[in-house]
């Protein structure tokens, strides 16, 4: 369609070259974009470039990936300027639904596909199956608003954290907290726990952590919806951060990139207290086994919340990009492959890891190899 436009772009030669490199990795699947053969006459396109990507690539899903997606979209536009890329950060549920209904080519989701969705995915994917690629790993920071505490972090273990969020510990100078924070002068101030009021992957991961590591102090089921009622809460990450900022003594949890100048909790792992960091988040992912039912296409990770691995930060959100192993036409295949390859690439991961973009944790080389293998297997019906 708009192939001829490619040549008009000044940087297209470089772009196509980069793309050729990206696609060379998956030569065995034998997809050269047939649409590209028609791109004669415009002259400047190198004849052996596999494809000038074009068309639309629509995705929708997790809002947690929203900022990272913006970064990736910009990076992807550099290598494929003619692809109309869009990502609607409408939420994981909406994203999965729209993907399964076939209106988007990929979805972002904070949770893995449910069994019935996997069945539905086979139909949507023209007999293929769904790919679940853990491309976005982000530490969840436990944030608090205590301007009078000058220490860099407050140290807490999972049990204390669970009791705080369950309303069992109500004062900042409670002995349970003080015992873990020698030398820190804790104020005699009521603790105001803040939770997310909407259903979210952040809440789900946080409650999973509390339930798994809380030594029984957290009696509620892990859920995307906060189980304790009657407390302060905020809608979305912004609502959460704003609420925590609005009063002293508050404590909440949010995507680490949004912690800003609020205090953050160092979590007890093994015998040490680990503050959040991208590397620490990546470590727990590497230390975690694959989830039950995971395949080499559905790379679902069962996060090991009780890990004692040194320097690992266990409160982590893993968000998946969900795509098909089979698409209807070659253009879709080429676009999806190119995009996901970019996202999983070192460059793409470095982009999203920038603190001003999303502050995510780059995936490890080992995970990248697995992801790339899954991407390479995407084929035309």
């Amino acid at each position: 369609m708009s192939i001829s436009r490619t040549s008009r772009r000044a940087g297209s030669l470089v772009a196509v070259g980069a793309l050729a490199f990206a696609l060379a990795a998956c030569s065995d699947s034998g997809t050269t974009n047939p649409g590209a053969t028609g791109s004669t006459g415009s002259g400047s396109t190198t004849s052996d470039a596999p494809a000038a990507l074009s068309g639309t690539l629509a995705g929708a899903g997790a809002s947690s990936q929203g900022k990272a997606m913006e970064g990736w979209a910009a990076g992807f536009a550099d290598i494929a300027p003619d692809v109309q890329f869009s990502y609607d950060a409408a939420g994981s549920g909406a994203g999965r639904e729209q993907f399964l209904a076939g209106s988007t080519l990929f979805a972002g989701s904070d949770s893995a596909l449910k069994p019935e969705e996997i069945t539905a995915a086979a139909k949507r994917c023209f007999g293929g199956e769904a790919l679940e690629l853990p491309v976005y790993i982000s530490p969840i920071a436990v944030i608090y608003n205590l301007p009078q505490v000058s220490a860099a972090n407050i140290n807490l273990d999972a049990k204390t954290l669970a009791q705080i969020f369950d309303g069992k510990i109500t004062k900042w100078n409670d002995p349970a907290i003080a015992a873990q924070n020698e030398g820190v002068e804790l104020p005699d101030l009521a603790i105001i726990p803040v939770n997310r009021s909407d259903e979210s992957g952040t809440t789900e991961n946080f409650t999973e952590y509390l339930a798994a590591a809380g030594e029984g102090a957290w009696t509620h089921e892990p859920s995307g919806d906060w189980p304790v009622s009657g407390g302060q809460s905020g809608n979305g990450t912004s609502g959460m951060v704003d609420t925590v900022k609005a009063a002293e003594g508050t404590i909440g949890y949010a995507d680490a990139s949004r912690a800003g100048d609020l205090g953050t909790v160092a979590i007890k792992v093994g015998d040490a207290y680990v503050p959040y960091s991208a590397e620490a988040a990546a470590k727990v992912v590497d230390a975690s086994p694959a989830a039950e039912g995971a395949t080499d296409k559905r790379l679902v990770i069962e996060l090991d919340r009780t890990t004692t691995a040194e320097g690992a930060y266990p409160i982590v959100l893993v968000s998946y990009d969900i795509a098909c192993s089979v698409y209807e036409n070659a253009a879709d295949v080429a676009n999806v492959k190119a995009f996901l390859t970019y996202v999983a690439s070192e460059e793409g991961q470095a982009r999203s890891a920038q603190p001003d973009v999303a502050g995510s944790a780059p995936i490890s080389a080992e995970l990248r190899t697995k992801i790339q293998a899954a991407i390479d297997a995407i084929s035309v019906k």
Partner: protein
Amino acid sequence: MPVATAPASSALTLTGNRLPRWAPWASVAGSALVAWGVLVLTGEHTATTVAALTALLHAVALTSVSRYVEGPRRATDRLATTLVTVAFLLALVPLVSLLWTVVSRGAVLFSGTFLTTDMVGVFGDMTSGGVAHAIVGTLMVTLTATLISVPIGLLTAIYLVEYGRGPLAKGITFFVDVMTGIPSIVAGLFAFALFTLLMGPAYRSGLMGAVALAVLMTPVVIRSVEEMLRLVPNELREASYALGVPKWLTILKVVLRTSVAGIVTGVMLAIARVIGETAPLLITVGMITRTNWDVFEGRMATLPVFAYSQYQQGGVGVDRAWAAALTLILIVMLLNLVARGISRAFRPKTGR
């Protein structure tokens, strides 16, 4: 005559004793001074507390003095004046602060480039990018909604004013009133339910949002057009009939023409009413970063949803949200001005 019967030299007036004109102002000033003094002493002098205490003291002082000097009726009047004024000022505080907040926070990123660029390729802390795509989306969706609701609204209003008699017209009038109260999110859910049933669960388009807005807009259009048509003097209609003009032509050429200014104004105000709707668009139209000119297919960016989603992103997004809000208000203002201009230009000069 009271003048004749009053021997005292000082009371040569027709009215009873009145407080001087400066009395209320003096009372305000005195109350403010006392309030400030008292609150400084108790150490709680903030603008809010001083204002509150001033109002209270002023009301009490002026009313009691007036009651003593002028009698109970005037005292009640003065109390009412004070209360009305205080209510007015009290309500003005949030409204003024609202406008001020939007303008001052919105001005941070607001610029010509902001209005003419979209969000493609903008990420992280970049302050570039803008709302061009959202402006286009908002205008397209609103225009589509207008195209749906104005003909329906116009014809229904004509029916009600010119033809409507009997139970049907009564029923329509009643349900139009009821329809005015449909919450915007319900209209959004309706559009969502309608289109997902017809077009499959994943269909998203500007049209979907436009239908939701049209549901909200139509009753407003009907109401205002109806009012305008009723303002057309019956003499005009009768004159037209007397000339042998059939009724439908009379309506088209006399009634509508006479009231066209009011109708346009009404439509403009109805547009202003729906252009800022967020919730129905949030669940129907979605959000993208580039301009979409196709109302029938694909997501569209709209200003209110853009503002909300940028706020959700935090960081620079919050500034962008305010700038988008400012843009939206400017558009609404522009619509209002255009409406006023049109009504002035079209207003029949011999009408009332």
